[in-house]
């Protein structure tokens, strides 16, 4: 047995059991070049898009989405959405889908004709 022990002292296997795989606790989600990218760089647009884009909170903020995916964190954790004291949001400041849909000509006609235009 001692002989085996001595023999093994010379060799440390490189394959070792490292335990069960775990998702790392801190992951850097800021965009970097893809490992197989031939240029090893990202176009400027990746950063600039994140600067201006708002998607469940500003995209350019660090650690906002701890698990990477959209909706990865409850909306409440993004902070209060209330306007400051004495301030009011205008509807035009909201994302486009919450803004007013412009009246169409058909709707205007419907109102003006008391709905008759819909049956014309």
């Amino acid at each position: 047995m001692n002989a085996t022990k001595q023999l093994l002292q010379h060799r440390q296997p490189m394959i070792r059991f490292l335990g069960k795989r775990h998702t790392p606790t801190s992951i850097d989600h800021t965009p970097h070049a893809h490992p197989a990218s031939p240029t090893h760089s990202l176009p400027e647009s990746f950063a600039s898009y994140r600067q201006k884009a708002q998607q469940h909170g500003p995209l350019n903020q660090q650690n906002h989405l701890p698990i990477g995916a959209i909706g990865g964190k409850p909306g409440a954790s993004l902070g209060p959405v209330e306007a400051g004291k004495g301030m009011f949001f205008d509807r035009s400041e909201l994302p486009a889908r919450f803004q007013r849909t412009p009246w169409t000509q058909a709707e205007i006609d419907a109102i003006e004709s008391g709905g008759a235009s819909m049956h014309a």
Partner: protein
Amino acid sequence: MFRAMVPRAAPRSLLRPVGGAQSSIRPSAFYVLDRSRRGYATEAEEKDLVVIGGGVAGYVAAIKAGQAGLKVTCIEKRGALGGTCLNVGCIPSKSLLNNSHMYHSILHDTKNRGIDVGDVKLNLAQMMKAKETSVSGLTKGIEFLFKKNNVEYIKGTGAFTDEHTIAVNLLDGGETSVKGKNIIIATGSEATPFPGLTIDEEKIITSTGAIALQKVPKKMVVIGGGIIGLEMGSVWSRLGSEVTVVEFLGQIGGPGMDNEIAKLTQKLLTKQGMKFKLNTKVMGGDDSGETVKINVEAAKGGKEELLDADVVLVAIGRRPYTAGLNFEKIGLEADDKGRLVIDQEFRTKIPHIRVIGDCTFGPMLAHKAEEEGVAVAEFITKGYGHVNYGAIPSVMYSHPEVAWVGQNEQELKAADVKYKSGSFPFSANSRAKTNLDTEGIVKFLADAETDRILGVHIVGPNAGEMIAEATLALEYGASCEDVARTSHAHPTLSEAFKEAAMATYDKAIHY
């Protein structure tokens, strides 16, 4: 929902339509019209994930995401799932490679094994039917898996209308649109055409035509000595064609194949009857006559030659396929080769749109796409995924098979890495001897100092299966000694693998 999204401090009157009184006098008919168009809820249910493309990348991502409980839709235009790989690539070609090898063996390799066979005839129609049976069984299998994992399958062509919406032109006629919180583009690739030659899939063919020829061509010219060209060349050469491979570079197998292995493979394929013209470029072709005339000349200029063929296979590579996707409309970018640009988490510049498989970076291999399919689903659901681009095996299913993983000798030399190399021939392996199938070698490349495996290159029987062990070793960061000290069953071909590892850190026993 709308109320929850607006600032809580906002006065309620701001949220009501202009003029409360006005809305109360609206005619009821108008109210219906109003609701249908102006409702704040989306018209269609929004999916958690929409996958465009039901190939190996797309269907794997869809199933994995379905397993994680996401509501998933997969859009596929082919009418069958599995993409190029299952329908017109890996799977049908392997069916033909396997059966043509059996035919070739029965024809040429039975006498010395003690088997006398009578009249051997090729039934090409039946061989193609066997191929189709394999393909249809597998594609239907994926449809079943979609149902099992609650993946909605839409047969049609998808195109972006905005960042979250995809309009689908249905195969059965009509249109629909799907909305997704996350979108994966996995539209794959297509064969790169050769400038000046018009692909008709009969006389001038790509790999798609090469798996569906109606009769064995007398003469076949393969443009491109990469894996696809050599595999399909092998099939038709075994079935009786006179095959000539024209390659621009100085070696076959493409850039990843080790020089030594490429030379040995070329020798073995030449012995089987294939002809090679390396360092040769194709100048043009003429398919107006009964046969196709191909003009070639030495790559560095010089001697011109005219090759005559019944069928010309164009196998110069593949290019990303994103036609009709309308990705430019939403501002996604592609590089000079048409690959969509992504970051380390497969995200495009619009973070909820991700790209995997052949239409983005990395080798165009089905198993790489599959790895990405799993990883991308995990990035979406868990925020963390894993693909090791340094340990993706390549396999050429000729006979003998060629397989490799990691770096090759020329790459190590170029990077100035100090390495040692060890190899073991199958001619010294007992199982190969009993099989009368002894051509080929196993070659290890390891770091000179640490003995860590850097690359494994195999040409020989069962190389495609054997490379899995090398890939695992590479993934774990094993040393040659680790492999050499692991017991391998006797008598098996895998002993050659072990002995080659032995030969790298010490000496092989049987050679």
